Every structure is written in C-alpha cells, then in structure tokens.
C-alpha cells in the first residue's frame, strides 16, 4: 500500500512538471512571436548584434 502511495505521489510530481514545462513552452512561443511582430532582431538573436560583413570591408594596410 505504501508503494502504491509513493507511486501516486511520484506520478503527481511528474504530472506537475509536465504541466509547468508545457506552460513555459507555450509562453515562450508567444513571446517569440511578439518579438517577431516587433522586428526585434537583436533580441531574437539572443542579444547579439549581427555584424554586417557584406558591404564595407575594413582594410588593414
């Protein structure tokens, strides 16, 4: 009976984690869509500014 109780408790913990993970993933998806709508290039690139390598090239003499 103890074992059965433990299993139920474990299952609840796992269920709870599954729910938290799903909630988080859904919220993140919303945030990324929002950033895309706003055209937030730097933020969508993890805070890193994309360097323009085409166009001007710095020449070292």
């Amino acid at each position, binding site marked *: 009976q103890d074992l059965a109780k433990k299993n139920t408790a474990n299952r609840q913990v796992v269920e709870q984690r599954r729910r938290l993970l799903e909630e988080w993933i859904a919220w993140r998806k919303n945030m990324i869509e929002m950033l895309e709508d706003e055209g937030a290039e730097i933020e969508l690139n993890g805070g*890193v500014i994309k360097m323009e390598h085409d166009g001007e090239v710095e020449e070292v003499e």
Partner: protein
Amino acid sequence: MRPILLSGHERALTQVKYNSDGDIIFSVSKDHVVCAWFSHNGERLGTYHGHQGALWTVDVDPTSTLLATGGADNTMRLWEVKTGKLLKTWDFETSIKRVEFSSDGRQLLGVTEKRSGHLGTIVVYEINPDPEAEQTSEQSLRIVCDESKATVAGFSYMAIYIIAGHGDGSVSQYDAKTGELLYNTPVHEPDMQITDLQWAPDRTYFITSSKDKSAKICATDSLEVLKTYQTDTPLNSAAITPVKDYVILGGGQAAMDVTTTSARQGKFEARFYHKIFMEEIGRVRGHFGPLNYVAVHPKGTGYCSGGEDGYVRVHHFDKPYFDFMYEVEREQANL
C-alpha cells in the same frame, strides 16, 4: 573542470560581467580598479584606472567597444575597452549603483543613490558607439524615484521599458521614452531590498534577487511573477543560464551578520535551480564570503562569481551539466 581563480582585486568584488562573445570578463571591486580578464584561462588583459572610490557596477556594450562603470566617487565613466582610454566622465551628487547598456548599445542608464537632500534617480544618456566620438553630457531622460529608491535597473527588449527594482522590494516599469511610471508592483517581501536584476537573452523576462532570500522571474510586459526560487540565505545576485533551463543564485550571510554559531557557516555557495520546475539541483562551493554577483557566459558554457572575499571564480561547465535532464524534458525533446 577546476574553477579558475582570478586574484587581482584587493577588496570585495561588487559586479562581474561577460562581454557578448564571452571571451572577456570585466570585474569591479571596492578597491577602485576595473579589471578585464580572458575567461578561458584567467589571464589578466588589462585594468582601467581613474575612479577615486569603491566601484559598484560595470557593463560592456554589445560590440565590446565601450565599457561603462559607476561607483562611490559619484561618477559614471565610459572607457574604450581596447585601449583603456577614459572617454567620458559624468558627475553626480551621489554614488552610481548600477549602469547598463540597452541591447543595441545606443543608450546607457545609471542608477543614482538616495542620500539626504537627494532622491534616487535613473538617468539615461544616448551613446555614440564610435570610441572617437564626443559623448553627450545631456541626459535624454531622468526618472526621479520618489516612492522608494531604485537599486537596480535595465532596458527591456527594444528599450521599450526601463524596469527597475527598488529598496522596498517592488519592481517598476517605466516608459523608456517619456520616463512615465506605467506600473509598480510588490514582487519581493516588503522593505526587503532587490539586490540584482538580470535579463533573459531576449529581455522578455528577467530575474530578481532579494534580501528576502528568494529570487523571482517576472515577465517584462506584465511584471507578473512567473517563477519563485526560495532559499535559506539573503541573495545578492541571480542569473539565467542560456542552453539549459537553470538559474544560478548567489548570496550568503556576511560573518558579522551571522548571530547563531550553530548555523552552517556562511553558506557561501552558488545555487543552481531548475528555471521551470523551481527545484534546487545543485550547489557549488568555493568562496570564503558571500557571493556578491553571479554572471553567466552568454553561450551558456560556464559562469563566474565575484565574492566578498575578493576573488572571482570562473567555472566551465562539464558534460554532466549539459546531459542532465528531467524525465519530462527528455519526453519533450523526443517529441
């Protein structure tokens, strides 16, 4: 891998920061000196001299060109990273507790301390990213915190908002263009100071730490508390790790504040929690005093901590760190 010990400071560390590539660590201390270090081997790259008092804060712009610092000499300063040249000094009536660049590096904010006759403020300057250019002395924005002083602040995604943490445990959202207070909400225990505020890489959420022994993740837009991490020690800092869904918390009770001798001394450990499940997953010992700041490598490959003991400890994560997964995470990954 064994941590690398950076021993160049003579007094307590107050803030440590990685640049956006993660190859350089900047550190500031009460010893008045700013140091730059190579993160992979701990070699010191250079120092920035000029401040006349304890340093409280440092930040580097996203292209690793400009460095901002602030401290107890009531100045905020701008330096060229490469040459160590002092480019600009802004003078204030009180100390500068926090500096931070916007994600595009075009704006810099400073948080000024409250003192008799002076309310705490948040000031903003437009920054010219060219190190040769003259920098402005004109503030583009000045927010006066008449309710509770700000202790930490930063720019949201796209610098739409300025988010500030206060001495009374609340968090504010300001319009970053007009300075208008849009929203203020108690996040931590009343009158428990917010000690740190660090962003997620895309700045849509952030983590705060507090003397109330907890850290919280809030949404930038709504200021809703999404996650709470409860510990047993006052916290000075909290960071969000990219790649893995963890947070790293640092703090500890200073020796003079420890009243019970039976208590495990100090608890000077970096604590790892699962960001989503809010469960503690591990601790890293090492410092001989409270951790005053924790910073995460922008690529999620390691972290460093600055301690009251005067050391910076740089850790590179091992394979088990990356391999560790909860059952439900593995399920999700296999979908």
